[in-house]
């Protein structure tokens, strides 16, 4: 399968802290790539750069659409925003920050459609209802405000609001963080089945090794702004080479 996104020699500093130190990676179409590491390892910074929310101080992010690979820097902010509105998606850890709580569930799902130019009220509404169903929320809730939703429902709503434009690439930042274990399982199952059905490529940042194992084809382990190990998910987790990865794997509580 062909390459979709590529990071080349990304480095970035926040003040005196080196947040990313010469990071390179590739993501292929339909592939799920997990980035794991402790907080402060640079994984979220890397995600923000891959998704065009942050511009690296040095290095390049290339996105391959069709045949040509073009750097985000060269595409420019406007083109990147257009990508972010439809062909890319971003699922944040806290749905309350990503959704608009004073807008109905349907309005939240329809937002990306409207941002991409949809102008037919009935079509937008029908699409929103379909997606509400797809994430297992009762269609009766279409006109309800999300502030009446539980944490798990909010996260599912955010997923619906992200996938409604049929993106080819979705970035996820700890999508199951902060949720009850039972709710986590449901979100994981939902993500897994939607990803398969829609043929998405996903970059998922998580500190939860279990999430990475269940969802990801490939794994990147980060520490102090560097990639210390990468490879097939099960290979990295079952046969970790780097001392830090061994520590990470050994620190997981047995189920």
């Amino acid at each position, binding site marked *: *399968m062909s390459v979709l996104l590529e990071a080349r020699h990304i480095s970035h500093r926040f003040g005196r802290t080196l947040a990313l130190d010469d990071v390179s990676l590739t993501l*292929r179409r339909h*592939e799920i790539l997990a980035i794991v590491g402790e907080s402060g390892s640079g994984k979220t910074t890397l995600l923000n750069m891959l998704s065009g929310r942050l511009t690296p101080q040095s290095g390049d992010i290339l996105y391959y659409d069709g045949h040509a690979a073009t750097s985000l820097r060269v595409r420019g902010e406007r083109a990147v925003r257009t990508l972010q509105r439809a062909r890319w998606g971003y699922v944040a850890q806290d749905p309350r920050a990503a959704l608009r709580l004073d807008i109905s569930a349907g309005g939240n799902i329809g937002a990306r459609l409207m941002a991409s130019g949809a102008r037919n009220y009935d079509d937008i509404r029908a699409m929103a209802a379909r997606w509400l169903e797809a994430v297992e929320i009762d269609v009766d809730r279409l006109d309800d405000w999300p502030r009446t939703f539980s944490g798990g429902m909010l996260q599912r709503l955010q997923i619906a609001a992200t996938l409604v434009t049929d993106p080819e690439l979705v970035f996820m930042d700890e999508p199951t963080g902060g949720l009850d274990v039972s709710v986590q*399982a*449901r979100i*994981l*199952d939902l993500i*897994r089945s939607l990803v*398969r059905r829609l043929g998405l490529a996903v970059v998922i940042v998580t500190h939860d090794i279990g999430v990475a*194992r*269940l969802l990801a*084809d*490939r794994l990147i382990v980060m520490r102090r702004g560097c990639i210390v190990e990468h*490879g*097939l998910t*099960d*290979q990295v987790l*079952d*046969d970790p*080479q*780097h*001392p830090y990865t*061994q*520590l990470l794997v*050994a620190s997981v509580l047995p189920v």
Partner: protein
Amino acid sequence: MRVMVAADGLAKSFVLHLQGGVRLDVLRDVGLTVMAGECVVLAGRSGAGKSTLLRMLYGNYRADDGRILIRHNETMVDLTQATTEQIIAVRHYSLGYVSQFLRAIPRVPSLDIVAETLLRRGVDLAQARRQAAAMLERLGIGPRLHSLPPATFSGGEQQRVNLARTFVAPWPVLLLDEPTASLDAANRDEVVRLINEVKDAGAAVIGILHDISSRERIADRTMTLTPLTNPSTSLESV
């Protein structure tokens, strides 16, 4: 006869960084060749590296040295050199693996766990579920359990879901890690029948089986591994 698996010069050691960088040598210069329709059982004391070898053959453990050729789409792919993408493709179509324990996303129904193997190959959902249901029933998991996630099942039932997940699709090469442990006699017989059917269909089978009666009914050959002497301590199946 077609060669399905050809491995040689395999070496594997583990460096335990959390234990002061202790180095454990597990395999040195190991090789095996398995033909279509042949079943090789790995034998040897615990700690001899049977599981390690099996996992290397699946690409789960990285080899320090040597090569592992697996027949995939009429070519031999070297797992030690293959890209992750190639390994994933080989695993989807050519290299089946039954692990000792079932690992699945919580909440996913047993039927869908089994059907997944076929869905990955592009079989449509209805067809995949039909085949999955048939295989589950063959292994004694009735329709009543199909819609339930296996988390609440007994150990034996979970293992049978695990077996169904692999046996639902044909494989040129099949790796089995204690497939009959935790099964009762009747189910054990069924698994032996399944393995023999797979062999008759031309698959190469490599397995670890402690259960001697099953072993005798499927094995064409036994390959015995001997533990390497390590300076510090021996390790129970790393």
